[in-house]
């Protein structure tokens, strides 16, 4: 009895008020200053699995060869071959094997970036894990968040993942080559994106046929020139 009372009395409240992801924020800030020092433009590419992140990155780096020097850090499940696919574009690709991780963290990206010669690059593209929920709170040190959705995923996709879309600087609507066949309601989709993410620039593209990609390249080169 007496002991229990003493224990209760010795309890004390400790104010912490610390962000739980603050450790990630520290690594992200470190990445950002490293990237900024070399004038690198860094993209964090996010989507559900299968929306076409790898295809989009592959095509971008292939088409911009000779104009922008790019490299890729890709969060790969052990079963994926994304790094190999990207390497076909001629750009260096570093793989982070994520296992059952549902998001990339800044510390992993920092380590992967250490394997690249950043001075020789204009653009670094990070392909995040296919997930529109978990990665949203993890800053990687990027300049731009590029959120993809495929026309086949339907026009209400942004409504299902509003938090992620609200953090987007760029929204890519991919697979426009099969939009019509998929019964994609383009007007409603664009309206949903604009209202959820009024801050974002929108590009409608096909990473397969290349349609709409030129506008994206022009915009990207302009952003890079501003660095």
């Amino acid at each position: 009895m007496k002991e229990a009372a003493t224990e209760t009395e010795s309890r004390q409240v400790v104010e912490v008020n610390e962000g739980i992801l603050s450790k990630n924020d520290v690594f992200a800030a470190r990445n950002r200053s490293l990237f900024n020092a070399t004038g690198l433009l860094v993209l964090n590419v996010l989507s559900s699995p299968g929306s076409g992140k790898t295809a989009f990155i592959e095509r971008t780096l292939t088409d911009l060869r000779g104009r922008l020097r790019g490299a890729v850090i890709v969060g790969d499940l052990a079963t994926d071959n994304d790094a190999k696919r990207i390497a076909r574009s001629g750009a260096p690709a570093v793989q982070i094997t994520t296992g059952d991780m549902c998001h990339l963290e800044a510390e992993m990206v920092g380590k992967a970036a250490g394997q690249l010669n950043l001075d020789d690059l204009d653009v670094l593209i990070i392909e995040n894990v296919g997930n529109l929920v978990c990665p949203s709170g993890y800053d990687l040190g990027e300049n731009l968040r590029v959120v993809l959705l495929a026309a086949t995923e339907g026009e209400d996709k942004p409504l299902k993942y509003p938090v992620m879309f609200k953090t987007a600087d760029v929204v890519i609507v991919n697979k426009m080559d099969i939009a019509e066949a998929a019964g994609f309601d383009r007007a409603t989709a664009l309206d949903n994106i604009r209202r959820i993410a009024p801050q974002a620039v929108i590009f409608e593209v096909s990473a397969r046929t290349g349609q709409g990609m030129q506008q994206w390249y022009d915009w990207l080169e302009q952003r890079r020139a501003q660095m």
Partner: protein
Amino acid sequence: MIEAVAIQNPKSKIDMHEVSVMQSALEIALEHMRRQNAARIHRIHMRVGALSSVVPEALEFAFDVVTHGTPAEGATLEIERVPAVCRCPACQIEFEPDGYFYECPQCGSLNVEIRRGRELELAFLEVS
């Protein structure tokens, strides 16, 4: 205790995301406990925003998993939910958005700032 939560959670599989978030929270908590020269954590109070992409129920379940065998085992987890709050710079008013679109209720503008709701914080602990 764990079984009861498992019944509420038909997925039966624990959420890896919330486990990793809870693991980070526990590391911060243990660090603060040590700084106080304390040996046990009795209570952990967290603030979880509506826009934090973390499910409070999954956090509670993850809490039992990650605290097992640590000085925080058996501690009470309190989760304070923080709603989203926006501000319209034109009208200079704050409002809680309802629905997907964050529209100023006064002028209809979508050009609003998110002021609260992204919180994922360890607020305070009770230790001895």
